[in-house]
């Protein structure tokens, strides 16, 4: 079966044909709270059907979201149990991890009590939400002086969808100021730690969704949300042994998220494994009448099914045969990640070396990437005029965005489409998914990208997670999930957890004390 035959509902020419200039529309109204209702006139959200995922876990930090949801449905755990377990870990470790900007234990316990007895969906699942998502009645700071006292009166569409399906808000997570860099204070003092090196602030936790990554890696929440404009979902995932999914641009509404770059911001999940990413995306995805970027895409896929491992004759197999492409700048991965490629071939994939599209180095360069900067400056022009000191450590890029003339901005936008055309015409004619060495090309083009763990590297005496990036054509999140789910069905890297009680500097020893590998099996449904 050809690639085109596999995806009748989505045509790349349609994707290109509709690249209409809606920036102005999106910028003028989609995110302005006074112009859109707090609760759009949306119907009841459809149920998210979760599989039964059995677990041998004995502690909350060992559970995946899917396992916890199964235990909740079966009545073996209550939302109160989960919440108290998360709060106990926050109480024990948060002062060192600095994953959160805001936690309200009383509100969390009250929400858990209200949720108790309800079954299905995300009821009772404690989530950590990045602090640039509006949460009604809860401070939303973007880690910036600009939003220091901001308490929104309405929910971001993402949090609305998660909350109405029963998720509980553990807290708002630390982030790079206004979604830039790793998490620091607005004035640049490093805050959030990598959970694998809790006492070493020099180890990169991934940014800008640093706190979201750390909260999940450290077992302070069952899942989290991040936003990605330049690697900010996939980087924390790679740094902390997690699975991070940046969906196709528009697949998840951005309404109610503090903007960094209107045409490049992507909300998505940071979680333990492909199934958890699928569950979160299933709840988050879909059109939002209040965000024109989310309209007109094909209907969301069946992500949970895509992330459910397939077994034939007792052996794990890819859901369908797929070609995994490797570009020249990712060829190092072929040797370093030999286990991954050998395993995927055994599971039914074909590994293909493919050339980079023409002008790849130019079109993905930092100079072309800089054409995003005016989009961060424009919405904040009033604050820039009022007092530039409000921007703290990140002011430079907001100033630089004011200095890029319109002609160059338009050229940069045209170059984005050229890059997209070449990826679709060249790269994805030769493969179904492609290994990437960096997130930027897929951030520029709005194509989906997933990060997942593949092992550990020794770095300065510490053993730290490493992983791979895998990209796909528009709206092919199911393919990404299927590949990662198959890989995770035969490996246990995603089940490793940092030992937060290990003596400082003994990160390497943590691996020897790893928890017993959990026997987790997702039932096909």
């Amino acid at each position, binding site marked *: 079966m050809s690639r085109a035959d596999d995806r009748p509902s989505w045509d790349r020419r349609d994707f290109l044909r509709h690249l209409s200039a809606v920036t102005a529309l999106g910028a003028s109204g989609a995110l302005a709270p006074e112009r859109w209702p707090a609760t759009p006139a949306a119907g009841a*959200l459809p149920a998210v059907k979760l599989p039964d995922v059995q677990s041998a876990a004995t502690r909350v930090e060992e559970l995946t979201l899917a396992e916890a949801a199964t235990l909740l449905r079966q009545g073996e755990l209550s939302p109160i149990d989960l919440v108290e377990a998360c709060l106990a870990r926050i109480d024990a470790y948060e002062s060192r991890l600095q994953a959160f900007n805001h936690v309200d234990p009383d509100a969390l316990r009250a929400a858990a009590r209200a949720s108790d007895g309800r079954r299905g969906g995300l009821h009772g699942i404690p989530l950590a939400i990045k602090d640039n998502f509006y949460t009604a009645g809860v401070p939303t700071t973007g880690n910036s002086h600009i939003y220091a006292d901001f308490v929104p009166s309405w929910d971001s569409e993402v949090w609305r969808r998660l909350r109405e399906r029963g998720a509980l808000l553990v807290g708002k997570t630390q982030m790079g100021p206004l979604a830039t860099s790793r998490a620091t204070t607005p004035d640049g003092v490093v805050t959030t730690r990598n959970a694998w090196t809790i006492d070493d602030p020099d180890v990169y936790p991934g940014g800008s969704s640093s706190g979201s990554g750390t909260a999940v890696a450290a077992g302070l929440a069952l899942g989290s949300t991040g936003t990605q404009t330049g690697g900010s979902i996939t980087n924390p995932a790679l740094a902390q042994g997690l699975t991070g999914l940046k969906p196709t641009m528009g697949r998840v509404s951005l309404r109610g998220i503090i903007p960094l770059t209107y*045409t490049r911001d992507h909300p998505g999940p940071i979680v333990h494994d492909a199934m958890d990413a699928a569950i979160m995306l299933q709840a988050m995805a879909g059109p939002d009448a209040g965000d024109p970027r989310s309209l007109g895409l094909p209907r969301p896929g069946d992500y949970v099914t895509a992330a459910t491992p397939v077994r034939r004759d007792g052996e794990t197999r890819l859901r369908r045969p797929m070609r995994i492409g490797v570009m020249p700048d990712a060829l190092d991965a072929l040797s370093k990640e030999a286990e991954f490629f050998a395993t995927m071939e055994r599971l039914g994939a074909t590994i293909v070396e493919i050339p980079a599209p023409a002008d790849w180095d130019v079109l993905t360069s930092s100079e072309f990437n800089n054409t995003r900067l005016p989009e961060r400056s424009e919405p904040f022009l009033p604050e820039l005029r009022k007092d530039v000191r409000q921007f703290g*450590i990140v002011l430079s890029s907001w100033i630089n965005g004011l*200095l890029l003339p319109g002609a160059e901005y338009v*050229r940069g936008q045209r170059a984005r489409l050229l890059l997209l055309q070449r990826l679709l015409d060249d790269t994805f004619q030769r493969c179904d998914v492609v290994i990437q060495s960096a997130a930027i090309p897929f951030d520029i083009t709005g194509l989906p990208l997933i990060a997942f763990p593949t092992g550990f590297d020794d770095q300065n005496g510490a053993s730290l997670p490493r992983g791979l990036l895998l990209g796909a054509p528009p709206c092919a999140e199911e393919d990404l999930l299927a590949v990662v789910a198959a890989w995770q069905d035969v490996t246990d890297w995603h089940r490793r957890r940092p030992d937060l009680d290990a003596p400082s500097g003994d990160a390497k020893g943590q691996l020897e004390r790893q928890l017993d590998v959990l026997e987790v099996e997702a039932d096909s449904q």
Partner: protein
Amino acid sequence: MSERRGVTRHPVADIDDEALDGWIRARLQLLGVDLSVLPVDDASAPVDQRRIFESARRFLRGTLPALADFDLDEQQVVPLTVPGSGGWAAFYDPYAPRSGEDA
């Protein structure tokens, strides 16, 4: 016109720091943005004028020539903004989802 396209390197005029800083100041003044509230040069501050101007000069000298060097056929591509297809539909009827679960 399509034959004329490609990457064309051209020499970048040697604009000294003083001239570039004058252009930066003028543009920011036109926009009403005042950098004088920042310390001039204070490494202990989160940000100062020296670092802002250094970053801006580096940005302009790198990004503008790189974009100018890259020729694009006017028939080849249109400006990519948001790769969705519902923008104008939302403009006409913003509360009528076109497809998907909320329809």
